[in-house]
């Protein structure tokens, strides 16, 4: 990460503008124990109070790093019931990074966020239909399968 991804200009700009970055050694205590670190890199998204919402273990190339971190930010907002903000984050991932490995999950979470904020099941069915049509082999298409039965 330190040799390839973090020096990337777009990655650095994104991180400096959108997140508070902190790097710790993999044996830095008490944090390594608190976060149960077993392998590196472990890249974790925390909310403002330090609670974990998203984790990636292993290398991310620059083109995957930004949409993956955007998904982490969306999950922070989703978990804290900030659905309007989560939806805005997810829309950006889906529109700007259609080939990212993070995008199928973003589509799924957009459907759930839409349902949680409107109680309209059409958002869930729309998530299934987009996943089935565009990402049929993703695990998120499988997870959305029950939504095909919704009206």
């Amino acid at each position, binding site marked *: 990460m330190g040799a390839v991804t973090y020096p990337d200009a777009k990655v650095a700009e994104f991180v400096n503008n959108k997140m508070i970055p902190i790097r710790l050694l993999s044996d830095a205590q008490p944090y390594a124990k608190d976060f149960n670190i077993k392998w*590196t890199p472990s890249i974790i998204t925390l909310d403002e109070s330090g609670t974990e919402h998203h984790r990636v273990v292993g290398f991310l190339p620059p083109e995957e790093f930004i949409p993956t971190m955007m998904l982490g930010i969306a999950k922070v907002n989703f978990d804290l019931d900030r659905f309007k903000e989560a939806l805005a984050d997810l829309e950006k991932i889906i529109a700007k990074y259609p080939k990212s490995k993070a995008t199928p999950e973003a589509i799924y979470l957009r459907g759930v966020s839409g349902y949680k904020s409107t109680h309209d099941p059409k958002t869930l069915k729309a998530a299934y239909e987009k996943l089935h049509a565009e990402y049929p082999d993703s695990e998120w298409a499988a997870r959305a399968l029950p939504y095909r039965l919704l009206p």
Partner: protein
Amino acid sequence: MAEIKWEKEMDAALARAKTEKKPILLDFFNPH
């Protein structure tokens, strides 16, 4: 050259996160 401005102390990162209302990117790494 682009450079990420890493914090090195968790307390400092948490304080900035609250002030700037941003999530934290926490990277555990092994330099070896």
